[in-house]
């Protein structure tokens, strides 16, 4: 895998993949939104079920982005690979965005369903901590001027923060919570009717592809900026 991870190869491969990623993302958003708004109201939740098609994918991608960040940080620490550091650094703002969207849409869904915007229960609190860890990671990168030192320090923070991922996942089983347990990834198959499952699936794929598209663009930007800095240092 590392053989394909040098910046030159990455620029070539990602440059070829980007138009396809953009096209697939736009198509899936179109399909997901169409299916989501033409689905019938749920017999219990009514039209608020449509919140699921944007809240759940945002939460999934928020967590997945942190997994990607922590994995890249680990590769950066083990192999001292500059592209891995760039991958971790650029995943953080995107992960923070998706996590923030999950928190906001969750709050907007919680008010009509639970009667409150927010409760300090296990799932919501651990998800808020994920958002704060993202912010801390970004702040630490910006606080250390030397890039190598910044990459090492933030990688340690990223790996420590990864402990929060299983806590988020299992919080609904470990503690009493208003948040429902997973209706999708569970033994015995999803507990959602196909009419809601398909729009959820399409939007989850759309959100995932959008994350990877933007991540690739941000890594490319980071590589170009590093090349610019190197050239400018050579000139001065």
């Amino acid at each position, binding site marked *: 895998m590392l053989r394909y991870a040098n910046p030159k190869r990455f620029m070539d491969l990602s440059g070829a993949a980007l138009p396809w990623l953009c096209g697939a993302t736009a198509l899936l958003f179109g399909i997901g939104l169409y299916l989501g708004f033409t689905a019938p109201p749920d017999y219990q939740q009514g*039209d*608020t079920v449509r919140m699921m098609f*944007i809240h759940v994918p945002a939460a999934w991608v928020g967590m997945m982005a942190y997994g990607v960040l922590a994995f890249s940080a680990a590769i950066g620490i083990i192999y001292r690979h500059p592209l891995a550091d760039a991958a971790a650094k650029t995943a953080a703002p995107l992960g923070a*965005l998706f996590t923030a*969207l999950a928190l*906001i*849409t969750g709050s907007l869904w919680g008010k009509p369903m639970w009667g409150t915007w927010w409760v300090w229960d296990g799932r919501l609190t651990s998800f808020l901590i994920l958002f704060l860890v993202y912010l801390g990671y970004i702040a630490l990168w910006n606080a250390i001027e030397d890039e190598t030192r910044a990459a090492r320090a933030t990688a340690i923070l990223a790996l420590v923060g990864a402990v929060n991922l299983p806590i988020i996942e299992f919080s609904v089983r470990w503690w009493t919570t208003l948040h429902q347990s997973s209706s999708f990834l569970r033994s015995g198959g999803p507990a959602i009717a196909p009419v809601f499952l398909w729009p959820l699936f399409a939007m989850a794929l759309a959100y995932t592809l959008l994350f990877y598209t*933007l991540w690739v663009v*941000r890594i490319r930007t980071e590589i170009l900026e590093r090349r610019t800095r190197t*050239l400018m240092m050579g000139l001065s």
Partner: protein
Amino acid sequence: MSAFFAMGGYAAYIWPAYGISLGGLTVATLLCWRFYARARARLAALEKGTP
């Protein structure tokens, strides 16, 4: 059509959720492309000026 926009009485929650989500993702996408285009132009200008 008005029934669609009323969202069964939950329009005040559903439309802001979609607006914030799609608006946030659109702004993020535009910013990512803008930063990328700026970085590319800066490097191209530097390489052009470099002997």
